[in-house]
């Protein structure tokens, strides 16, 4: 397959925290996750806080190094490459940050912000200027000559986020991790930013990993969706198929929890799962969702970790309910 852009294979990213003098604790932020992203494709990684979705995104960019697993980018294994051998990768893989209010330096003009990656990668002045103006045109900050002189505080939230996108575009990346790019932006402007990312993707063909907690925007702005829970991908597949036919009880819960604007909502009590997501230091044994799951099979779900089951082509779920074993023991 030549159109494969990035492959994450069984990624495990752990963090260690000192507790007291001698004890260290392991936070299993990502604990065995596999994802592949094709050129021109958007894969949404959806999960609640602490599910490891941001860590997975940072691992994909090699901003943190996984303790095991492989990162294959454009056919090359970059997992253990030294930083000085990674400069080509740094140019091709970029990130859009969550908070456009803190991710832009307030003392720099828009031009300086967007130009900085070009300086680092040694572009001459003429090309820098061309690329900055082109990036501003691309993110529809018209006219560019007015915006280059501005400082971040002179811009609205949506405009700032577009500067963030322009900064990520100047190096012409083939892969972008967008970490909650619209969660800090007003609801009325969210679709604008997401449409913009979609149209840029169509134009330049990059692959995007869209990290979000909002399953509703994922529905409209991704081709594939991966649902994360406590460091694991519990379900992955084509977005429309997963949302229409969620196989994992957690996916179904996430969908149920999000209201659509409907005046009848207020007469119904929403079906919810009890409890809260587990602590990644000490996740429950077996299936990590079992303490909250209404379908759990005693002696199976709480003991043994569920295997990944293919439901149909490209739609996978990690849940005992979809295996022979559960049917036998039930």
């Amino acid at each position: 397959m030549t159109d494969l852009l990035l492959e994450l294979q069984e990624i495990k990213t752990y963090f260690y925290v000192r507790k007291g003098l001698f004890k260290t604790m392991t936070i299993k932020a990502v604990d065995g996750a596999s994802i592949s992203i094709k050129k021109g494709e958007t894969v949404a990684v959806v999960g609640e806080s602490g599910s490891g979705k941001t860590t997975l995104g940072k691992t994909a960019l090699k901003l943190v190094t996984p303790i095991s697993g492989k990162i294959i980018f454009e056919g090359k294994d970059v997992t253990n490459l030294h930083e000085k051998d990674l400069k080509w990768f740094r140019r091709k893989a970029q990130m859009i940050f969550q908070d456009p209010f803190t991710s832009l330096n307030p003392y720099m003009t828009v031009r300086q912000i967007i130009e900085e990656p070009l300086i680092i990668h040694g572009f001459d002045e003429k090309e820098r200027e061309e690329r900055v103006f082109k990036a501003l045109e691309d993110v529809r900050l018209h006219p560019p000559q007015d915006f280059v002189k501005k400082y971040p505080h002179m811009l609205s939230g949506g405009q700032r986020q577009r500067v963030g996108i322009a900064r990520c575009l100047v190096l012409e990346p083939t892969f972008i991790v967008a970490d909650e790019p619209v969660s800090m932006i007003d609801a009325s402007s969210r679709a604008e930013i997401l449409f913009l990312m979609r149209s840029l993707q169509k134009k330049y063909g990059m692959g995007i990993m869209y990290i979000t907690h909002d399953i509703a925007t994922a529905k409209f702005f991704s081709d594939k969706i991966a649902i994360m829970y406590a460091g694991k991908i519990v379900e992955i597949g084509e977005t429309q198929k997963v949302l229409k036919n969620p196989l994992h009880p957690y996916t179904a819960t996430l969908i149920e929890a999000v209201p659509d604007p409907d005046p009848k909502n207020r007469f119904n009590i929403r079906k919810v799962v009890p409890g809260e997501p587990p602590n990644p230091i000490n996740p429950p044994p077996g299936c990590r969702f079992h303490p909250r799951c209404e379908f759990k099979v005693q002696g199976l779900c709480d003991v043994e970790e569920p295997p990944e089951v293919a439901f149909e082509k490209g739609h996978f779920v990690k849940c005992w309910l979809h295996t022979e074993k559960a049917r036998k023991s039930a």
Partner: protein
Amino acid sequence: MALLEVRGLKLYYKTVRGPIKAVDDVDFSVEKGETLGLVGESGCGKSSVAISIIRLLPRNVEVYEGRIFFDGIDLMQLSEEDFRRKIRWKRISMVFQGAMNSLNPVLKVGFQVAEPLVVHQNMDKEEAVRRAKELFKLVGLPPDFVERYPHELSGGMKQRVVIAMALALNPEMVILDEPTSALDVSIQAQIMNLLKSLKRELGLSMIFITHDIALASDICDKIGVMYAGQIVELSSIENVLLSPKHPYTQKLIASVPLLRGDRVPEFIPGAPPDLVDPPPGCRFHPRCPHSDGMRCVKDVPPMVGVEGDHFVRCWLYSGGLK
């Protein structure tokens, strides 16, 4: 008569650039047992409405005027001391945005819930903690959690503690300012269910402040849509969601990505205005697809009733465009 009636409320903040007109001529009322949702984007003044009602104002207030009637009492006429003793927390309480993160880390949560009982009702501490246990049960927490410290609770539990605190003195009205915005969706659904059952069991009146119009539909009977310091549309939730009148409301609803429908979300071009120097005429005119460039730009549209109790502030419904 309505339980709460707000007329011509204004709240301006003093800044070096001139006054910020955070709340500029806002009218609404809340009946007993009713929940009013105030919906709008960040900076539209919805939290400022809340602190005007419960009168917890910052120091840089320049203008604070209008009339607020609560159960027939003119709140604006009460002295600070009377307001503190008779109204705040006793009859109107509030759950602040992010309040779960402002619990005192060195005090047990039970005592923090019991504190208003000791202060306002001269209860002794043991009795107050006993009452706190009842409140914990009411909000779905195990009563023995009164002995815990905030760091021993999860986000959803802390939010329940903060709600218990607001209910401590049996208020008739609770103002909830983005009570779920810091929570995960699965926890948000739990808290919304709790609020719904409290509303039903205690007959509470609520003002529910949120930027999420879909979430508002989960609990509100009535919705006021705010834009740039003003309410631009006010009616029952059915009217606002099913036949929105104001172009802003229409666009706001169209921008919600639907999980159960196929309509592709839209967006509103541009950004909300600076409230130091809001646009003349209708404040939405620079972003409005219907703006006529004449009347909308020059004259401030009045709030008019269409079809009975459906109020809208737009020239389309009061005399038409030029």
